[in-house]
């Protein structure tokens, strides 16, 4: 009964009034969520949305992981085998998760959310911290900015999504993502219709923040199902204020406020994130993705704004033509070849 089946990507951005609690959409919601205070379902007019995860509350039950898998099952890849023989075979490898769909201790194309665990001693107390991990939904996402085909994009409501019908599966997004979040499945997608052996290698998958549920005025599956109300979603400015308040209250720490210039996922924890990062099973920052099935265990270390240089260079691209015009006006390059030399024949 806790299962909510979704039809695909509606147009209805108007369903948002069907808030939770009573009647209508409320009937579809699991009891756990309905009972839980009044989590407000965000509206399209709320602009950029962010989520807050209160790590002091998470009991690591994994209900969110299960809900994510069920709720998004219709989006999962169904690859055809055999896969194309990639060229060159020494460099391009097929990545196949379709026989390992049950793996739930890391991110995969079939598992967009998993729980990390950190046992941390801090100020004389021991903590057992559970951390639901998925895409951070960066405010300025490099995965989207640097996608050569426009397949990955950030929506105005703050969701970063990878469109499975355009994605070529080159996995650039995974490399440029500071947390290496997107995961590849070979044997599906556009590349199969183009030059499957020579360009592309499947489709990249990651949390899309249940965009189709948000469009209908419903909460993302992982938020809705959580028995401990670990997650809250709302307009970014409200979520930031709440995260700060909560961190102050528990004398804790926030992850996601500054990381990569700010993300739309804010973790609040009673212990410092460096301590958490030290002990979690992870793929460290800036370590090459390497061979095999890629890293699916994000770190929790500090991340500088990876697009900062581009932000600075943007000014140069604006000033350059102005400088050029000035130089031209001053006569640089104005001299035309003499008429005599100019015999056109």
């Amino acid at each position: 009964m806790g299962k909510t089946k979704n039809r695909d990507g509606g147009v209805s951005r108007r369903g948002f009034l069907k808030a939770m609690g009573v009647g209508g959409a409320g009937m579809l919601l699991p009891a756990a969520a309905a009972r839980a205070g009044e989590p407000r379902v965000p509206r399209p007019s709320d602009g950029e949305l962010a989520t807050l995860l209160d790590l002091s509350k998470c009991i690591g039950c994994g209900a969110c992981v299960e809900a994510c898998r069920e709720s998004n099952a219709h989006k999962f890849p169904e690859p055809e085998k055999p896969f194309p023989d990639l060229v060159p075979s020494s460099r391009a490898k097929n990545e196949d998760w379709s026989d390992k769909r049950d793996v739930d201790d890391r991110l995969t194309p079939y598992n967009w959310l998993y729980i990390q665990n950190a046992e941390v001693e801090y100020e004389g107390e021991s903590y057992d911290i559970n951390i639901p991990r998925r895409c951070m939904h960066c405010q300025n996402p490099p995965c989207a900015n640097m996608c050569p085909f426009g397949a990955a994009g950030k929506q105005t409501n703050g969701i970063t999504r990878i469109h499975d019908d355009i994605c070529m599966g080159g996995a650039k997004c995974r490399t440029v993502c500071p947390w290496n979040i997107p995961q590849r499945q070979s044997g599906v997608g556009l590349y199969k219709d183009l030059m499957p052996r020579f360009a592309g290698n499947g489709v990249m998958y990651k949390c899309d923040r249940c965009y189709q549920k948000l469009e209908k005025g419903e909460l993302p599956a992982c938020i809705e199902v959580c028995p401990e109300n670990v997650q809250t979603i709302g307009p970014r400015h409200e979520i930031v204020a709440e995260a700060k308040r909560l961190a102050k209250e528990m004398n804790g720490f926030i992850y996601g406020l500054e990381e990569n210039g700010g993300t739309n996922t804010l973790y609040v924890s009673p212990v410092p994130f460096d301590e958490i990062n030290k002990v979690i099973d992870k793929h460290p920052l800036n370590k090459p993705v390497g061979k095999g099935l890629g890293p699916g265990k994000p770190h929790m270390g500090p991340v500088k704004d990876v697009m900062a240089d581009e932000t600075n260079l943007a000014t140069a691209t604006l000033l350059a033509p102005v400088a050029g015009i000035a130089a031209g006006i001053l006569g640089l390059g104005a001299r035309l070849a003499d008429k005599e030399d100019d015999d056109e024949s």
Partner: protein
Amino acid sequence: MKARPYPRWISRLFILLAGVLAVTGFMQMPITKRYYLSDLPGMAWSANFYTVHRVHYVLAALFLLLLGIVAANWFRAWRGKLALTGFGWARIAVVAALVVSGGFRVYRNLPGVTLDPSLVLAIDWVHLIAAVLLGVLALAALIARRSAYAVRR
């Protein structure tokens, strides 16, 4: 041979910049590692997507600088003396599409800017298609021996 009345260094710089922009543009696709390009001596940098991206930005700034010089000269001094060729017109239109779509991409990459995803998709494809088109037009003009953008009136 003197089909181009405007300074030779402008032509050469234009061709050079357009060429390396095209190369670094295509290197935005994840191909340099797969096809061992980054293993060539001196090409290791091409394996880093961020480096390639930033190099493309710098080259784009230089290209815009050159376009600024040419545009100023055109309106200040050349307009009365030179006339654009057919191939000149066509390539200018394509370069304009590249500049506008590229400008949008730079704008889109700024923090605090979120454009509609379908607009972004259109921008990305205009940029990619225009780059290919410029190459095709340049080749056609070369074969037709009409590479000059403008000739004397």
